């Protein structure tokens, strides 16, 4: 399960529409809560360095990742996942996504963008302990409205 605010959910989908017909990408900052899932507190847009094939590839420069990880540390967050778009392709992970996924325990959110319009957004949790036994598992995306977030905080869940 991944929890994300309605505002951040809308923002990552909008990012995919803005960069269409190219893939967008970004990083999800927050906390992983054992037994609950990844909770996103902030999304950070990143540049797609694959300018040679940006319509069907993305790559975040390691230098940018280092900066984002520093930013997360400063805010008391961790990197809990990533997002990217699939222009005119389904919101399902591809073999390329799987081969290039190395952050076990993190969520990989994919939004399909058809003719410039965000359609479906799915999330996949990278499970396993090594490159040899890693796997993507479907995970529910819980989009929280401000009222729901308030309730979660009152319950001490956030």
């Amino acid at each position, binding site marked *: 399960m991944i929890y994300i605010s309605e505002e951040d959910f809308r923002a990552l989908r909008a990012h995919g529409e803005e960069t269409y017909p190219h893939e967008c990408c970004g990083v999800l900052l927050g906390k992983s809560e054992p037994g609950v899932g990844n909770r996103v507190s902030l999304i950070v847009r990143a540049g797609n360095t694959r300018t040679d094939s940006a319509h069907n590839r993305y790559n975040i420069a390691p*230098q940018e990742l280092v900066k984002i990880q520093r930013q997360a540390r400063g805010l008391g967050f961790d990197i809990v996942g990533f997002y990217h778009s699939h222009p005119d392709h389904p919101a399902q992970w591809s073999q*390329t996504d799987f081969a290039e996924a190395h952050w076990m325990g993190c969520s990989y959110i994919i939004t399909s963008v058809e003719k410039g319009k965000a359609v479906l957004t799915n999330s996949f949790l990278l499970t396993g302990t090594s490159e040899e036994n890693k796997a993507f598992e479907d995970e529910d995306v819980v989009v929280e409205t401000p009222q729901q977030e308030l309730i979660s905080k009152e319950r001490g869940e956030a």
Partner: protein
Amino acid sequence: MKIHIPTPLRSYTGGKETVEVGGATVAATLDQLATSYPELRNHLFTAEGKLRSFVNVYLNDDDVRYLPNKEETLAAENDELTIIPSIAGGCCCNL
């Protein structure tokens, strides 16, 4: 020196985001890291002992692979190493 550990590898450092390890060079520091936290070794290095291709290592703000002496670059106590696995993908297999 301080080494920043990425989220997926923290389960092998007792949950620590930052660990302190000594070493004269980047390579020596990484080796000491894998000695102090043995479960990390397989995640950082291939069976041949080379850094895995998707594991990026930064010495302060510099990608170690692009430094003149690469992993043999000298490391000072107040330097910081950051380990950051790559992030990439794409919607289909054909270019």
